[in-house]
């Protein structure tokens, strides 16, 4: 048997209303009791100053009031007892309803869990199979792409290598030609320098040899020749 949640809430609401009413009655009873006590106090005060008749009247009134209070108290107690009883029965009903509800919900959840588990396993299997399939496909695609890229890279590398080799060869040839030109220029320059040095050495050696080898008479003749030249030019 499935208890509707609405029914469950109605029961809880009823219990709440009864509890509020009971609480209101208790408060009312408290006020009445308080008033009684005030009156009794006043009565005692009045009792002292009144005559016997008045006392009797008052006694009667007191008794009547006491009876009334007693009756009210009994009624209140009765009401409280009844409300407690109602409360107990309501609680019992509520407990029973809750227990039933829990049992039903548990059963329902168990079934739902079983169903969900089945569906989940099924979906999981589907996903796993699907994933494996996708992974296989992806792996093949990656393999194909990788192989293609490797081929492309190899071709590019080959082209670049050949290009670089050609550039290097050209550069080497250019440098070689330049170096050869520089060497030739350097060779010419050095030969020129050597020629100049040899010339200077030759001149120096000639001077030294001539200076040392001229006899005194020859010197005298050279001096006379110099004077003869001076005679012509000065």
């Amino acid at each position, binding site marked *: 048997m499935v208890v509707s949640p609405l029914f469950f809430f109605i029961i809880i609401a009823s219990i709440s209303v009864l509890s509020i009413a009971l609480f209101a009655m208790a408060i009312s009873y408290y006020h009445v009791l308080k008033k009684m006590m005030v009156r009794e106090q006043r009565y005692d005060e009045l009792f002292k100053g009144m005559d016997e008749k008045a006392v009797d009247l008052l006694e009667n009134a007191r008794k009547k009031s006491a009876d009334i209070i007693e009756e009210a108290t009994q009624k209140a107690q009765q009401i409280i007892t009844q409300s407690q009883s109602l409360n107990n029965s309501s609680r019992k009903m509520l407990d029973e309803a809750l227990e039933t509800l829990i049992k039903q919900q548990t059963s329902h959840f168990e079934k739902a869990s079983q169903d969900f588990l089945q569906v989940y396993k099924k979906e999981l299997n589907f996903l796993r199979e699907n994933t494996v399939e996708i992974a296989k496909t992806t792996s093949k695609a990656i393999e194909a792409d990788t192989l293609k890229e490797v081929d492309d890279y190899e071709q590019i590398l080959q082209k670049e290598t050949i290009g670089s080799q050609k550039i290097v060869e050209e550069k080497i040839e250019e440098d070689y030609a330049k170096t050869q030109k520089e060497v030739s220029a350097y060779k010419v320059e050095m030969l020129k320098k050597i020629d100049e040095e*040899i010339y200077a050495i030759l*001149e120096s050696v000639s001077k030294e040899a*001539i*200076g040392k080898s001229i006899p005194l008479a020859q010197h*005298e003749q050279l*001096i*006379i020749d*110099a*004077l003869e030249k*001076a005679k012509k030019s000065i």
Partner: protein
Amino acid sequence: MNDKNKLIYEISNDIRTVAEADNFCSEIDVILENFYKVKNKNLEEVLLTSTGTSTSTLIKKILSDNKISLADNASCEKILVQTRDEIKKMKIVKITLAIDPSSEIISHISEWINQNLEANTLLDIDKDEEILGGAVISINGRYKDFSLRKSLAEVFTKKKNELIGSISPK
């Protein structure tokens, strides 16, 4: 030829260079100084005590050529002063040689210069082996290089390419 030129001509064979002239003038100064210092002293005594033989001989020759007696102190003094002054006025030819010239070469050069270039000149001789031979002459502010060094340099300059061609490896 006037008296002054005659006087210089007479001594030019004996005083050829600036050094000789300076030395001779210094000795004349010494002789003149001794003349002033010592009264009643004749030139013969002064020459004996103050100068060398060559200077003494030259002075006697000058006095003899000018017919002046050694005892005539005044004339002697006059001719000595005149000689010294004329020597100091002589022109100087500066000549650079590659050798230390002998006296014979100096005479030869001096004679040649006095006859052919400029009369009454003194030689200021300098030695520079670098010029190799010939002479570098400076006269009347003009400089002429007639050295063998210059001639050789000219030959090397003219024949440079020819020389380099002959010594370069083929």
